[in-house]
């Protein structure tokens, strides 16, 4: 296939592109000098971390960069419009660009939740491009729009036409955006992180959809992503970018098998790959390229129980009607039980809305559980008075997803790390700053950072500060809620290693909440897979990952894009399975969770509603 695409002339050819942004501190180069070609019928993946200039390149090709304050300073953007000679889009005026956008080149974006106009119907938005570029009248455009909705496999296309975006799920909206992009049969489809905001099973559907549509229509795809797993699954060729420059380019197998550049090798080493822990039973830090590592031994932990959670239930009231009466309950966490041993990590993994974060907050009593028992180191958390609870919270600390939002932008970092110490101890204790300094050492941050503010640090460094703050009162348990999800992959690896190192040295336990199966595999001793408020499978990491029993666990693992181009498994997974609603009327009594033992400490939920969801496929 590559040979065929090589011989034909490129459909688009970026030559020596340089893009600058005007900022208050003068012009900043978003892209320094980038060249690559896209051939008809191929999928070219541009991969890089945040700030690498991968989106800037594609936005430049569409000349949408003009609207974000970017200026194309140098270079050519040659595009084959079918005329004798390719057109240089860098020199084109906006009138010509309007004829090309949405017609010859179209684009899909990262955030399906906001990519559609909230006050126009799906039908209207689908027909905009058709009327504009193909001159169709309303009737013909509508007919074609229906066809498109079928093409992107949206059930009940007729009904969808009159719906508004807020009535559809994220995956459905992304299909609509794809349908809009395909409406005029573009020669080039640019997909800018189209699955990053989606759940992993929905991501699998969208990726295979893009792949199938590419095969059906023969359009070239320029796919921009930070996720090496996605690259391995769909790319024909790969361009690796770093800080505004192209680092490496080549066929996907070559990039994964024999990366030429140090950066590419480091990037690949940082990617946790599902299945790479096979044969081991304990988590161990990742081996990173060019990083000095103190420990990389497996972390054993102990067999002493630290946290015991039993029959935890959390419900949120849904208010409705004129008088805002209590009309229904969201069964966010339904009869969940698990234990965490001292010095070990239990992960709760699942898709958005499965109740994993709610469970994490409930055990800290940050929100009020309906019922259940939480026993931390022999102390019943549910029975504590307000005063006792405050003292008990010293033993449980949290790390949040977004380190920028979880740190106060106006307080010096040293003070923020000192806050829990002051909160739980003597406010004026002169030893506090010494302790803060050792905490900064502990998480590998220079002491000079103590006097800085959050905006002066990178994302990974900020998360380091958040970890130092969580460690400050010497907690027994740290709840890490999607603590590495917002970080670039190389930074993510460093933060994960830091957390594991701290566990090995300090014996702290983690409740690790994540949607990412590969990360969970790397860090966990125990794993609980959550679906619709319940743990559907619970057991030692090796047992759950190597011998998954529950169909949902299997579906979740199948949906993970594996960072190996020889293991392409996402191509045909178009099974659409919406998660049923966790909202039940008032007075609904949920049946208790029943488990069957399928291995040592390995439990499987037997009364699950996962298969029943097939029958009620409505959305």
């Amino acid at each position: 296939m590559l040979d065929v695409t090589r011989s034909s002339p490129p459909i688009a050819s970026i030559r020596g592109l340089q893009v600058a942004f005007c900022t208050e501190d003068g012009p900043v180069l978003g892209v320094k000098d980038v060249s690559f070609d896209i051939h008809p019928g191929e999928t070219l993946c541009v991969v890089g971390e945040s700030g690498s200039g991968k989106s800037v390149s594609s936005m430049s090709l569409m000349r949408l960069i003009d609207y974000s304050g970017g200026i194309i300073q140098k270079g050519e953007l040659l595009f084959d419009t079918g005329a004798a000679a390719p057109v240089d889009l860098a020199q084109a005026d906006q009138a010509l660009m309007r004829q090309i956008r949405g017609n010859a080149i179209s684009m899909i974006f990262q955030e399906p939740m906001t990519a559609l106009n909230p006050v126009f119907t799906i039908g209207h938005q689908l027909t905009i491009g058709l009327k504009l570029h193909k001159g169709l009248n309303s009737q013909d455009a509508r007919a074609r729009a229906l066809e498109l909705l079928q093409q992107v496999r949206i059930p009940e296309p007729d009904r969808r036409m009159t719906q508004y975006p807020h009535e559809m799920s994220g995956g459905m909206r992304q299909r609509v955006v794809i349908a809009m992009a395909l409406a005029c049969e573009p020669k080039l489809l640019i997909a800018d992180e189209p699955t990053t905001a989606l759940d992993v099973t929905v991501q699998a559907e969208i990726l295979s959809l893009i792949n199938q549509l590419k095969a059906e229509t023969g359009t070239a795809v320029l796919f921009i992503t930070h996720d090496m797993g996605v690259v391995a699954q769909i790319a024909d060729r790969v361009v690796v970018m770093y800080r505004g420059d192209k680092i490496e380019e080549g066929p996907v197998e070559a990039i994964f098998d024999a990366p030429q550049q140090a950066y590419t090798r480091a990037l690949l080493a940082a990617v946790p790959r599902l299945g790479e822990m096979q044969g081991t039973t304990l988590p161990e830090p990742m081996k990173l390229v060019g990083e000095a590592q103190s420990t990389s031994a497996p972390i054993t932990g102990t067999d002493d129980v630290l946290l015991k959670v039993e029959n935890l239930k959390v419900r949120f009231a849904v208010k409705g009607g004129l008088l805002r009466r209590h009309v229904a309950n969201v069964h966010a966490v339904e009869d969940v039980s698990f234990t965490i041993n001292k010095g070990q990590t239990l992960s709760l993994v699942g898709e958005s809305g499965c109740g994993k974060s709610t469970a994490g907050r409930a055990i800290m009593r940050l929100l009020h559980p309906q019922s259940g028992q939480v026993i931390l180191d022999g102390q019943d958390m549910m029975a504590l008075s307000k005063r006792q609870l405050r003292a008990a919270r010293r033993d449980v600390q949290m790390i949040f997803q977004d380190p920028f939002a979880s740190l106060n932008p106006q307080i010096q970092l040293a003070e923020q790390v000192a806050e829990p110490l002051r909160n739980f101890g003597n406010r004026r204790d002169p030893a506090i700053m010494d302790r803060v300094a050792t905490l900064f050492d502990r998480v590998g941050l220079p002491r000079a950072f103590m006097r800085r503010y959050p905006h002066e640090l990178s994302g990974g460094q900020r998360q380091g500060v958040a970890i130092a703050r969580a460690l400050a009162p010497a907690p027994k348990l740290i709840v890490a809620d999607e603590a590495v999800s917002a970080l670039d992959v190389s930074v993510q690896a460093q933060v994960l290693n830091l957390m594991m190192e701290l566990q090995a040295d300090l014996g702290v336990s983690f409740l690790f909440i994540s949607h990412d199966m590969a990360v969970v595999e790397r860090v966990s001793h125990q794993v609980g897979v959550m679906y619709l408020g319940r743990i559907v499978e619970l057991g030692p990491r090796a047992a759950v990952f190597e011998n998954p029993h529950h169909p949902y666990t299997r579906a979740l693992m199948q949906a993970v894009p594996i960072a190996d181009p020889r293991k392409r498994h996402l191509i045909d997974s178009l099974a659409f399975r919406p998660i049923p609603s966790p909202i039940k009327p008032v007075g609904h009594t949920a049946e208790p969770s029943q488990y069957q033992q399928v291995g040592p400490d390995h439990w499987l939920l037997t009364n699950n509603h996962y298969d029943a969801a097939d029958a009620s496929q409505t959305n």
Partner: protein
Amino acid sequence: MLLGYALRRFGVAAVTLFVAVTLMFVMIRLVPGDPVQILLGPRATPELQARLTAELALDQPLLRQLLIFYGNLLQGNLGVDVFSGRPVTLIVLEQLPHTLRLIFASVLWSVPIGILLGAYAAARPNTLFDRVSAVISVGVVAAPAFVVALLSLLLFSVHLRWFPAIGAGEGFWDQLRHLVLPAFAIGLSWIGYIARIMRASMLEVMGADHIRTLRALGVAERPIVLIYALRVAVLPVVTIIGVGVGFLLSSAVFAEIVFARPGIGKLVIDAITTRNYPIVMGAVLMSTALFVTATTVADLINAMLDPRARAGK
């Protein structure tokens, strides 16, 4: 779905009106001083005082007074004017159209200009147009309605003699001519206010992902701004206009006095100075109803424009 929303919204409006009117009724009764004495003067005979007290039901307990008041209200009876003896309902309804016309005219000319000014400025941020419109907007917001009213009166009717100075006029065209200056005076600061809010809202929308989607589809800037962005950006402005009609009502009081126009504002001022309580109560009731109606209509328009609003609570 829109019908359901409208019904719910009307329910809320009815409850709001009930609470507001009850509160007002109680507050007026709690004001110290015997209204009968103030109305009749110090030399009134005790018999006369007793008769009026009974007439106004002031000898009854407060709850009963309230029930009587609501009973009368449901029959459209707001009591009688203490001086002329004419039904208050009639007097208020006579004056109401003048005020409604004034408010309507002010909204009609100021809101479209404010919205377009703000939208246009936001579509070209930091250009000369944007900066000039910002200066003008803040300038007119800062100018109080009564000052604008007096100045425009001096300039356009005393000096230039383009428009009549006082009264409401007779017949359609004459009334329209009489409406120009007061509507200008109280609408002017509205332009600035709405333009500022519209600009902020529009700026936010122009940076939204769905606008980028349209650009990526090849849609030209003009329809993007005038159709797609405007439809979203105008939503918060609609709500603000609904609430703002209440403020226009207080501006209208100034305009009606400066231009000696008939209307609710003038009626209230006159009634308060003469302690004519039934009229005060009637006029206040009417303005409350006007305010509740305006916010309800704004919410309904919002629901028509925004499918999310009618789906939500």
